[in-house]
């Protein structure tokens, strides 16, 4: 069924829309162009039906991100106006465009990739058929065509999507975006039967090791030491903005302004690889959900420790006016040292 069953005698990708998927299968070995252990394909999606919502995404490997110190770092990402066989649609952004869907929608994510490279989309926390899971070694890395990931979210909550080809590099390069599943009640309710909210903030905290940002998309796949076991970040971002200084302060939807009596929902995504600790500047929040699932009992917290790709949905109902600093430490996975900190704010008026 999956690639794992048929690594040597490929039978899974012969329906490639480009007509060549089958012959390119089998993975392994030198693929030419220095890519190894990639599994190119873009077959027809099994069980394809009409979608309620469609996202067309292309690839942009040249997204400049200017940091507070004036340095520009090259990011990779998904562009929101892809589609078509070229997959070289509009300009990408960092992070990639957010997807927002409603529980029960049938969703199509159409990823277009040109013949020069391979990527996938994995909707992290969404659990579809493996043919729509976007994991190259089990199915295929999208190459030279368009592949449709079909899924139907069953649980409202906070997710994200990211590339799963040479993932260690591609996700670090910025190939991710937020993915929000609203309940049938719509935005303003976290999940059916759960809390409502008036204002929303997005805290997507990530670290960047600029020394990785000149590597090719195939880096390390054929062997050789390209340093991907060592992530030594020198920049720290929150929702696409340099978080080390004041750039994210008072900048919605990262920072939020709420009135006393209003409810703020913060969707916190640990988008980096190193662990993080987020502190709420003296505010107490209530975690209602994590990883797209309601907690059996909400938990009141003043800080949260998070591991890579965890998500927490936190509701604040601040009673006192003032500005509260939301600080996230990025913590080295071995030493425990704080490598950097991002800053955002909640202003209560």
């Amino acid at each position, binding site marked *: *069924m*999956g*690639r*794992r069953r048929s*690594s*040597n005698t490929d039978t899974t990708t012969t329906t490639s829309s480009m007509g060549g998927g089958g012959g390119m299968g*089998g*993975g*392994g070995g030198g693929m030419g162009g220095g890519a190894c*252990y990639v599994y190119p394909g873009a077959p027809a999606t099994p*069980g394809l*039906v009409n979608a309620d919502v469609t996202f067309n995404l292309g690839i942009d490997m040249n997204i400049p991100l200017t940091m507070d110190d004036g340095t520009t770092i090259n990011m990779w990402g998904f562009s929101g106006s892809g589609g078509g066989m070229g997959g070289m649609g509009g300009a990408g952004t960092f992070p990639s465009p957010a997807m927002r869907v409603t529980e029960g929608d049938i969703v199509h994510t159409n990823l277009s990739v040109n013949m020069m490279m391979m990527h996938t989309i*994995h*909707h*992290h926390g*969404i*659990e*579809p*058929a*493996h*043919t729509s*899971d976007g*994991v190259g*070694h*089990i199915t295929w890395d999208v190459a030279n065509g368009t592949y449709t990931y*079909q*899924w*139907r*979210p*069953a*649980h409202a909550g906070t997710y994200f999507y990211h590339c799963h080809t040479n*993932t*260690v*590099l591609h996700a670090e390069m910025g190939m991710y975006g937020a993915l929000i599943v609203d309940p049938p009640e719509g935005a303003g309710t976290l999940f059916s039967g759960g809390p409502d909210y008036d204002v929303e903030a997005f805290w997507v905290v990530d670290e960047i090791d600029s020394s990785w940002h000149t590597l090719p998309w195939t880096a*390390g*796949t*054929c*062997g050789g*030491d*390209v*340093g*991907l*076991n060592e*992530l030594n970040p020198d920049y720290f971002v929150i929702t696409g903005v340099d978080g080390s200084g004041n750039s994210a302060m008072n900048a919605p939807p990262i920072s939020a302004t709420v009135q006393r009596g209003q409810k703020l929902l913060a969707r916190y995504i640990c988008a980096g690889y190193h*662990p993080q600790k987020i502190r709420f500047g003296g505010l107490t929040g209530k975690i209602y959900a*994590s*990883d*797209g*699932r309601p*907690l*059996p*009992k909400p938990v009141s917290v003043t800080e949260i420790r*998070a*591991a*890579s*790709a*965890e998500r927490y949905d936190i509701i604040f109902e601040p009673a006192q006016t003032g500005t509260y600093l939301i600080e996230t430490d990025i913590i080295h*996975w*071995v*030493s425990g040292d704080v490598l950097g900190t991002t800053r955002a704010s909640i202003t209560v008026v």
Partner: protein
Amino acid sequence: MKKSMDRRTFLKFSSAGIASALVTSTGLLSWNPRAEAATINQTFYITEGFITQPDGVDVYFRGFSPGRNNLTVPGAQMIVQEGDTVRVTIVNTLGTSHSFKIDGIIDSGRIRGGESKTIEFQVNRAGTYMYYDARNAPYNRLSGLHGGFAVMPNGSSNKVYAGSPTFVQQYFWLFHDIDPVWHNTIRNGNTPNTRYSPRYFTMNGLSARPPGAPGAMDPNTDSMADPRSALHGHVGDRTLVRVLNAGLCQQSVHTHGNHMEWLTDNGQVRDDVWSKDCIYLEGNMGKFDAIYPFESPPDAWPPVTTGIYPMHLHTEMSQTAGGGLYMFGALTDIHFE
């Protein structure tokens, strides 16, 4: 240098030789509770040798092995039940001192080079544990002297602790990270003083090999094909994973296909069971228990009951070997059959 090489006949093991010794160890998938407590006998030989890593580099390890002439990293998985008496004999074939410890249960104390020691202890508290060499911490443990140890609740075949959610099968996922410079320093009898830089990442002693790679699909080489690591189940086959971290890296354990029911954290039963797709695994002997429920993947359209999904660490540096080779790190596959 020559002298030490002559004194010790270093054994070089392909990873195949290692795991085959393990696969025959205590059967885990079919635990039959006993009405009576038993005495469990286990002998470990502390041995050393080299294990070839995915990039071809031979790295020095020590292990709790089943015989003098082999090397097993990690040591055999052990599973016992509350009330059992466990009698462990350690035969130290090396010239260095070692120990056998399970936190909160037993500490053998020093076992000098060339000596043997038998320790006997009763297990009274159900849970997931690591046995390890606590001497020269953490270096002896990092060198490979560790293994998984589980205590089942008295008379239970399907619970982690009395009153826990139930499962039908159980696995250990014992993660490790390896800095070959440290291992070589340990081999030479010195204390590492370089910054720890892990280059290899394993689960139950093996790294993954993606399809098409040498050793792929070989259960003695590829963690994705290792029956101790890869989950196999039908819908409804709720599966306990006992997750342990022998290494120093903090990890994020991430499953595709289903969220995990997060039951315990570092030996403590959690107040509530959270449903998580990523769980924080502390470095330096962190542990948790979780059930992978094998429910139909909830977001599939049309619905499916079969498929293959990965379990990987989301701390993605751990998915590499030797600084590259994505997918040659600590990951496995989950098969909905």
